[in-house]
């Protein structure tokens, strides 16, 4: 309870919103679960392998290297010394990197026994600039 005079123009009542104050929403915190292992990558301006899942040319990808890649994850991998972004498919001994572009229908990259697939990390967010 407040007593005494309240001077004009300078309210001494606490803001009714005070109890509801919270931190500003921080996109860094939202999109970077593990900072030391998170890297940003830029998708090239003609890269359309993953267009059906919304990874457009020039997209910004958030890649977390600390996540162990599982089947169905979208991963950043190395194929023939080039970086690619594809969906990882692992099922009954078959390992593939699949594209998501129905129109172009790129064939999957298949890894046979003894061939090593190098995954750099799992893509956790995809940011397309709309402006």
């Amino acid at each position: 309870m407040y007593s005494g005079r309240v001077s004009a123009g300078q309210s001494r009542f606490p803001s009714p919103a005070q109890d509801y104050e919270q931190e500003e929403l921080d996109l860094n915190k939202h999109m970077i679960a593990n900072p030391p292992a998170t890297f940003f990558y830029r998708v090239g301006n003609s890269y359309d392998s993953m267009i059906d899942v919304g990874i457009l040319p020039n997209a910004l990808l958030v890649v977390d290297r600390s996540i162990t890649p599982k089947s169905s994850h979208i991963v950043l991998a190395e194929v023939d010394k080039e970086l690619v972004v594809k969906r990882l498919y692992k099922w009954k001994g078959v390992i593939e990197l699949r594209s998501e572009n129905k129109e172009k229908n790129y064939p999957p990259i298949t890894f046979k026994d003894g061939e090593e697939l190098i995954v750099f990390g799992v893509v956790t967010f995809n940011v397309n600039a709309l402006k």
Partner: protein
Amino acid sequence: MPLSNRVYALCDANSFYASCEKVFRPDLKNTPVVVLSNNDGCVVAQSKEAKAMLDLWMCRPWFEIEEEAKKLGVVAFSSNYELYANMSNRFMTTLRQFAPRQEVYSIDESFLDLTGINRDLVAYGKQIKDTVLQWTGLPICVGIANTKTLAKLANHCAKKQSHFNGVCDFTSMSKTEIDAMMQQLPLSKVWGIGNKLEAKLNKLGVHDVLRLKRADPKRIRDEFGVLLERTIRELNGESWLELDETLPEAKQVMSSRSFGTRVSTLAELEEAVSYHATNASARLRKHGLYANAVYVFIQNSPFDKAQFYGASHTVAMPSPTDNTMQINKTALWILKKLYKEGIYYQKAGVMLMELVPSGGQQSDLFGFTQGDSKSAKLMDTLDSINKKYSKGTIKLASEGVHKAWVMKRGMKSPNYTGDWNELPHIR
């Protein structure tokens, strides 16, 4: 002092600068890579492929070996300090989860205190190594032992002897095994023993680490001082060097201060930054160190009503310097880049980074080779620079920055982790 019951791990990145470059260039996975010093002067880091090819080229001037190196398919990079600092932070942060206490010893080395961690330490070391590789892409080696000096030595063994697979744990080995390894190692592999000291000890017939370990510490103290005595005791398992969790001044020198009142003009900020640059340079010389990079930051108060503005930038120097004028110019040049009008700044600071001792040798940090004549010379330098500086102060700040000394970094890789326009690309 009784034998140490502490357990230290030294985690050291392999060919750190070269490895940082490789993280973003999968096409160079098996390619020999070298990194050149400021102004593309000489080789300061080599990937393991490059080491295998041209181990003796370390510290050689690049112009002398360039032709031959290129014929061999060696890819060279100018130093990209911004990238290395970023990757170093990731490395150190990743290590933090593995131990309650950590000492960041240099840009690519960190001690962890594993005392009381009740686990198979070889397996734990491997877990540390694998995690750092997965999270950051950096290959590291881990040396584990009961003293810091021994952990350093174990790390060396982990690096050089492939059967360890990057993790060497002295605590799980017998004394005989360790002694046998020590007998094979030259003194220069011991933390704190530089070339000069090694030569002196060699003259006395002490050629390998085992012989040093068995030397009489008291006699060594009489002849070489307490530091080498300590080294011997550490080699024998007595822990004399504590984990140092604070960043010692030897690694970076910082000068910064909040302003009494808010400051908004560039001229005022220039005065402040100039002051801090001078101050930091003086402290640098006091420690006999040279800086490879200059970092400047300015910010308003997070508690002010205006939106927070904080900006910082690092610039690598053309060559290691302790020269106030050069550092000052660099700092003011950075400030110009950072400055934004209409902001009421609350704080500014200058940090000198990537410090190297005058001799260019890490062992000098230990102070073994610091003679009186050297410090006397240092004082002379200090005085003359101070004199020169006070004459030039006012002129410096007003004349701005000449581009003449801006570093040659023609082969620098992109700032992959620090610039939106230079992110690694997927084509």
